[in-house]
């Protein structure tokens, strides 16, 4: 498996009246061909900003991707691409689908045309061929009556159907990478499962690498190969799905796992929620951003940001508990494992 994408020290800020909001603060990761990487974290931790940066979709101003950041796609820095290279990349090599299918489709353009736009630009088809292909794409994502449906408008589709259309648009040009930013958050539970199954199936058939963004660890267990946990604009832990579920090391990962609803959870038990709120990104703390909410917080945690510690070839954790001098702590009972 070759390396497809490499994000190096990504830093993104927003210049607002209140000051500089440091939304992403030095995120680095890699994505290999055909794999699914899940990015997990609470609301506001910078997941969407990280993923939009990959396609340079951050509006500027107020957004500002710092100069030291690099995003290498097949060894070429996306952040330095010119307009034309960027257009070929968007939708052709890397596609993106968004959280809310109700608002992600153009309300005044026929579905077929919205899929065809891609094909015309990236696969050089003419209008007629593109619409024909759009019908095939709709069939592929499981929309019945595709022949008729291409001529309809988004308001004639349900939420789940629209997300299928979004997937069809994204995969129309057979991209190498699909970025899915919370693709199921706005849908109800049964539809969520259908959409995840569809993405898994399409990945098997097409070999697309997926970056799946979510704040729900439960969603990723069955589809992700690797998981990366983000907190306050940083990656605090990463590892294979097994490592994160069976051998999590960061107290924040523990807390996330603890808040996943489980089959054996009794009705009476209230679901665990992490106390406190994430830090203000206008004035991010100098130490570990999780320190103020961490049950195991030590003095050093408030003063210094811990360096990443390698646990295995694939697992890496930024936490002082892994320092040789730190007290030994056990993760809380009953978290992770098989869901």
């Amino acid at each position, binding site marked *: 498996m070759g390396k497809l994408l490499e994000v190096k020290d990504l830093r993104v800020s927003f210049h607002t009246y209140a000051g500089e909001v440091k939304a992403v603060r030095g995120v680095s990761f890699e994505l290999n061909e055909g794999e699914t990487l899940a990015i997990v974290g609470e609301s506001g931790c910078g997941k969407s900003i990280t993923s*939009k940066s990959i*396609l340079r*979709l951050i509006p500027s101003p107020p957004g500002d991707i710092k100069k030291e950041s690099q995003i290498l796609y097949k060894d070429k820095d996306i952040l330095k691409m010119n*307009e034309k290279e*960027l*257009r*070929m*990349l*968007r*939708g*052709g090599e890397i*596609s*993106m689908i*968004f959280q*809310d299918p109700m*608002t*992600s*489709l*153009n*309300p*005044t*353009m026929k579905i077929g045309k919205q899929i065809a*736009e*891609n094909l015309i*630009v*990236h696969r050089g088809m003419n209008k007629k061929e593109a619409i024909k292909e759009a019908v095939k794409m709709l069939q592929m994502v499981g929309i019945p009556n595709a022949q008729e449906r291409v001529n309809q*408008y988004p*308001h004639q589709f349900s939420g789940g159907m629209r997300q299928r259309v*979004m997937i069809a*648009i994204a995969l129309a040009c057979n991209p190498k990478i699909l970025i899915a930013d919370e693709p199921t958050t706005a849908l109800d539970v049964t539809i969520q499962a259908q959409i995840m199954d569809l993405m898994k199936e399409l990945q098997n058939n097409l070999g697309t690498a997926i970056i799946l963004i979510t704040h729900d660890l439960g969603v990723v267990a069955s589809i992700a190969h690797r998981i990366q946990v983000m907190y306050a604009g940083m990656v605090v832990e990463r590892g294979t799905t097994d490592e994160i579920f069976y051998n999590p090391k960061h107290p924040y990962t523990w807390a996330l796992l603890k808040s996943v609803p489980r089959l054996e959870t009794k009705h009476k038990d209230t679901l665990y929620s992490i106390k406190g709120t994430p830090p203000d990104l206008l004035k991010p703390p100098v130490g570990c951003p999780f320190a103020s909410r961490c049950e195991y917080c030590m003095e050093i945690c408030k003063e210094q940001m811990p360096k990443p510690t390698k646990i295995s070839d694939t697992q890496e954790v930024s936490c002082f508990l892994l320092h040789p001098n730190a007290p030994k702590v056990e993760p809380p009972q009953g978290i992770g494992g098989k869901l």
Partner: protein
Amino acid sequence: MGKYILKRASYMIFTLFIIVTATFFLMNAMPGDPISQQARKMPPEMQQMLRHKYGLDKPIAERWIMYLKQLLHGNFGDSFVTPGFSVNEIIKYKMPASAWIGIQAVIVGLLIGVILGIIAAFRRNTTADYIVMFIAILGVSVPGFVIAFLLQTVLGGKGNIPIAGWKSASETFAQGLRFTILPTIALCFGSIATYARYMRTSVLDVINQDYILTAQAKGISRIAVAVKHVIRNAIIPIVTILGPQIATIITGTIVIERIFSIPGMGNSMIEAINSNDYNVILGLTIFFSLLYIVSLLLVDITYSLVDPRISLTKKKK
């Protein structure tokens, strides 16, 4: 669609009936009548004879019924003041000039207003944006006739642009165009301002929608995103203000034609009011109302064409 238009047409006839009736009685409630105004120096007996000739001595209710009957035959009656001229003829001769500057003003106003709004939105918080917004405030707050006098003072008589007047019968359309420049600008200045403001807000609103991000993520060109996704959606709210703007322009012609001595219906309207020329006042009022009602229908049809979510015939699912 046909059924819808039929239904609207029946409402329109009802609306017109109300307008005819209201205007008829209001006009008769005004002091004086065409005869006392025109034939002030005639002996009272002769005035009485004239009243009898035109049927003005009949009870008002009877005259109202008579007028309605006449209308059903498409006949607006004769002018009292310019004998030998029917109101139908006046409309026929005066309409071309009014229609010319009216239609020109609606189109120019819409085009320039929308384009300025788009520029302001895409170049927001730049000098271009500030200039457009300055024009917008000016256009909304300064009345058309002030703009008209300003234009006459500043541009009138310069180059080929006359201060006032209209093309003579022998001149071609192209030769007559110069007479329409100032009145058109004066007439549509307010519209330009209103469209520009609405369009700017609308574009800024659309730019922040998720589907614009989707469009950008497809890798289509910036122009394609702007035209097919941003502008196409931003124009929809503009259609809703088209109706009121057309009304402003129709009423605007009355004053503007006077200022620029344009031989149009607006000018005739003012003359008719000054001389209590009942039939002309009534006829022109009905004609202006009809124009407005029809344009409202056209606006609604346009709305359903530009926005697929709006259906005129079916109830929303």
